[in-house]
C-alpha cells in the first residue's frame, strides 16, 4: 500500500514498511550513509543518515525509521550538515586513521564521506588508542586502528554467509569487533575464508594480506547481488 509523505518540502509516495532512506532513494534524494549497505539489514550504528522529523523536531536515522502517512522529513538542513560533519570528525578522532598509508586510500567510504561533509580538519582531540592488528588469518587481516564499528562485517557474515564469525564486544567507547569468542581470526574454525567481510568493510580495517597502499578495491554490490540471487532463487 502506498503512503504519502513530505521530504524536504516535496510530496513523495512510498511503499508501506519502507525506510525513510529507501523512500528518499526512490525519490532521487541522496542521504549520506556509512554503516548502511545494500544486501544486509540496517542497525543505525553510524547516525550519518540522521533526518529531522517535523513536529517533534526529533533526529532519527533514516535507515531504521519506517515511513508513515503524512510524515514531514527534512534531510537537508544546516543543522544536519553540521551534525554529519561532527560525526565524521568524531569517527576520525576515535581511532588511528592515516589515509596516506592506508590500503583503502582512494577506495574508502569514510574518506569519501569526509570529503562530502567538507572535513578540512578535525576539531576534537585525537584519542590515539593503542589498537592491535590481527594478521593470524592465512588470507586476510584486521586492523582495529581503522575500524569504525559499523558492524557491516558482523551483519554480512551472519546474514549472507551464515557463519557469524564477527561480533561486537564491550560497550560504548570500549566497543570492539571480535572474531569467534574473541580469538585470533586465524584460530576461529567457523570462518569459511569467503572474504565477504573484506568486501563489506567500508574502510581499510579488513584487508587482503599483502595489500599495500590504495590496493584494496572492494566490490560491495556483489554482496547485495548474492543475497538477492539467493532469495529469488536465481540459480535454480
Amino acid at each position, binding site marked *: 500500500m502506498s503512503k504519502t509523505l513530505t521530504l524536504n518540502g516535496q510530496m513523495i509516495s512510498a511503499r508501506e514498511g519502507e525506510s525513510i532512506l529507501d523512500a528518499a532513494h526512490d525519490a532521487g534524494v541522496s542521504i549520506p550513509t556509512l554503516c548502511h549497505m545494500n544486501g544486509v539489514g540496517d542497525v543505525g550504528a553510524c547516525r550519518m543518515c540522521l533526518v529531522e522529523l517535523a513536529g517533534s523536531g526529533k533526529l532519527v536515522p533514516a535507515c531504521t525509521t519506517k515511513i508513515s502517512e503524512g510524515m514531514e522529513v527534512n534531510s537537508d538542513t544546516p543543522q544536519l550538515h553540521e551534525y554529519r560533519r561532527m560525526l565524521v570528525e568524531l569517527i576520525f578522532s576515535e581511532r588511528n586513521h592515516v589515509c596516506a*598509508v592506508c590500503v583503502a586510500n582512494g577506495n574508502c567510504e569514510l574518506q569519501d564521506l569526509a570529503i562530502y561533509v567538507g572535513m578540512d580538519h578535525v576539531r576534537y582531540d585525537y584519542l590515539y588508542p593503542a589498537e*592491535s*592488528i590481527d*594478521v593470524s588469518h592465512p588470507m586476510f587481516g584486521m586492523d582495529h586502528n581503522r575500524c569504525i564499528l559499523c558492524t557491516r562485517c558482523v551483519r554480512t557474515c551472519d546474514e549472507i554467509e551464515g557463519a557469524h564469525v564477527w561480533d561486537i564486544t564491550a560497550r560504548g567507547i570500549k566497543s570492539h569487533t571480535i572474531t569467534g569468542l574473541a580469538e585470533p581470526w586465524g584460530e576461529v574454525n567457523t570462518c569459511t575464508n569467503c572474504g565477504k567481510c573484506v568486501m563489506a568493510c567500508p574502510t581499510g580495517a579488513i584487508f587482503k594480506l*599483502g595489500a*599495500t597502499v*590504495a*590496493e584494496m578495491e572492494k566490490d560491495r554490490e556483489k554482496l547485495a547481488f548474492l543475497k538477492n540471487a539467493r532469495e529469488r532463487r536465481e540459480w535454480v
Partner: protein
Amino acid sequence: MSKTILIDPVSRIEGHAKITIYLDETGAVNDARFHVTEFRGFEKFCEGRPVGEMPSLTARICGICPVSHLLASAKAGDDILSVRIPIAAQKLRRLMNLGQIVQSHALSFFHLSAPDFLLGFDSPPAQRNVFGLMAAQPDLARGGIRLRQFGQTIIELLGGRKIHPAWAVPGGVRSGIGDDEIKQIRERLPESIAVAQQALQLYKTLLETYHEEASIFGNFPSLFMSLVGKDGAWEHYDGVLRMVDSAGKTLCDIEPHHYADTLGEAVEAWNYLKYPYYKPMGYPDGMYRVGPLARLNVCTHIGTPLADAELREFRQRVGVDGVVSSSFQYHYARLIEILAGLERIGLLLDDPDLRSTHLRAAAGINQTEGVGMSEAPRGTLIHHYQVDQHGLITHMNLIIATGQNNLAMNRTVKQIAQHYIRPAHQANVPEGMLNRIEAGIRAFDPCLSCSTHALGQMPLHVSVLDANGQVVHEKMR
C-alpha cells in the same frame, strides 16, 4: 670570555639543523657542532605494523628521497618473504632508483649549492639562492630544473606519482612500464646528458676559483663505504657493501645480515642523529663517509663510457693516488653520478626484460628477520626489520646515509670554522664566513629525513653567547 656562535637554522639543506661554534677566551674556535634538531620516531611507531606496509610507510620519512626508502624497505621485505623477485621488477626498481639519483643530485647541485659557486660565497644572501641563479644564469638554472624534472618524471611514469609512490612492494613492484613511457624517457635523455656535461665543464672551471674552499671543506682522510658490483663496478641497488680505507684499500665486504658486527651506532646527548662508525676502529676513530664521493672512491670503474672518462679525470685532477679526500668534491662526484645515472637509464630502456608482465612474486612470511640495502643519493641506506610469525614488525633499525656522514660533517664544520673564524673577528664574524660553514654541510647534501626544502629563503640566525649562555650579540640575515 668564551663565546658561542649559533647558526640556526642551517639553510638550503633538507631538514632542520643548527650549527654551534664555541669560541675560546681569545676568540679562536674551540669546537663546532652540527646538531640535527628534528625527531621523527619511525623506528618506534612502525612496530606492530605489517611488513608489507613498510615500503610506503617508510617512504614517508622523506619527500626528496622516498624512492630510497621504498627500495631498501621492499628489499628487506623480499628478504623476509625469502623471494627472488622477477627480473623485470628488479630492473624496474633500478630504473626508478636511477631517476631518483638524477633528480636528487640535480636538486642538490643546481637548486641548493650552485648559488654559492656561481654567485659567490660572499654574495648578498638575498640573491644567493635559486632565484638569484635564475636571474644571473637563466640557461643553467633552467637546465638544472629540467634535469631534476626528468628524474622525477621517471619516478612518476613508473610509480604513478613523483613523491611517495607506493610502488615497490615485498616481492617486486606493482606496475610495469609501457612503450609510450619508454619513448617519453628516451626522448629527453640527450638533453639531460648535455645539461650534466655542461655542469661538469662549468664545475671544472670553478675549481681554481675555489681552491681554498676545496682544501678546507672537510678535507681529511677517512674510510669510505658503498655498495659495489661484484666486479668492483659502481652500484646503486644491489651488490656487496664494501668498506675501504683512506688509501682506497678494501678493508672488508660487509654481509647484510651481519652489518651490526661491523657498523656501530653511537649516540650523543646534543643531537637527534646517531653516529654510525666502523667498529674495528672504535668510536669516533671509525669515522667513514658514504654518498657520491664514497661511491666513486670505492668503485674501480663505473661501466659506461662518458662517466668512466669523467671518473678517470676526477681521480687525476682532485685525487691523491686515486682517492679524493675533500668533501668539497662531493659536488664533483654528484655531477659524475648524474651522468652515470643517465647513461645507465639509456641502457636499461633498451633491455627487453623491462617489458615483462611478471612483476610480483607471491610468498608468505618465511623469515623473521630481513635486511635491505640500497644506495640512496646521499649514501648507503640500510633497513633492518624483525617480524613475528605473522609478519608484524617487532623491531626496526634504519641506518640512513646522512647519519653515516655525521662524524665527517661535524669534523667538516670544525675544520671550516677553525680556518675562517679568526680572533680578530670578535663577535662580528662576516656573513660569508658563516655561509662557508653551512656550505661545508651542504656538500654532503644532508637529508635530515624530512621534505622541508629551505631554498635559501630561511633566515640565518646567528647568536653569540657568553660562557653563561647570555646572548651578547645577535645577527639576522
